[in-house]
């Protein structure tokens, strides 16, 4: 089965419990259809770069999927009826990333508690990025 990365953007006025319910609901749709949810991430409530359906912020849910094309199409159809979802995109990838991505938290409920603990060290990637200089 091909591998996918999925990003789902939900409305800003959902509570964190609702967001977790939503992501559980989505992963259930996929497992029922014979697919696999490898991992889920919650990127938090982020500001949009531009307005989407008159909203300026949204919850970002990220899923790593291992599913057939028919499953993905069915998923897109069902999500289309859901009013809480503003946008839903699938990207086909060769392999899933092992590391957690730049926006970290496993689900919406734990996101609040984790944000307090933060003491960030610059990662290897950050140092690499800092070394890139573009002269225009």
């Amino acid at each position: 089965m091909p591998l996918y990365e999925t990003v789902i953007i939900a409305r800003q006025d959902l509570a964190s419990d609702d967001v977790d319910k939503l992501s559980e609901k989505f992963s259930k749709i996929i497992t029922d259809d014979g697919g696999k949810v490898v991992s889920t991430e919650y990127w938090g409530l982020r500001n949009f770069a531009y307005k989407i359906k008159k909203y300026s912020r949204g919850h970002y849910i990220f899923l790593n999927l291992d599913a057939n094309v028919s499953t993905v199409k069915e998923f897109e159809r069902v999500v289309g009826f859901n009013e809480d979802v503003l946008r839903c995109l699938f990207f086909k990838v060769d392999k899933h990333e092992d590391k957690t991505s730049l926006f970290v938290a496993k689900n919406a409920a734990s996101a609040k508690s984790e944000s307090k603990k933060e003491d960030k060290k610059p990662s290897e990637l950050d140092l690499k990025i800092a070394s890139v200089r573009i002269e225009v």
Partner: protein
Amino acid sequence: MINQDNKNNNDEDLLKISLVNQGVFSRKKKKCPLSIFDISEINYKNLKLLDKFLSERGKIYPTRVTHVSLQRQKALAIAIKRARQLALLSPIKQIDIN
């Protein structure tokens, strides 16, 4: 113009250009600034990196300006366009990332 220091430098690092009725001159070859990155690292989640290749109007800088290799420029363009679809980057202006 003839570069007098030419003999001291390695020839591999220099790009020699000869023009009609003029001498040969040389300048340094520019290296791809993304050569330290794996291609999978150039993705739509890596916003801090993508932001370096955007103008203040949100346009992608051409290879002519940045000297990014063809392979990486293609990956970069795809990554930036995906980030725009997700409203992580704006198509028309610079935004604060974080």
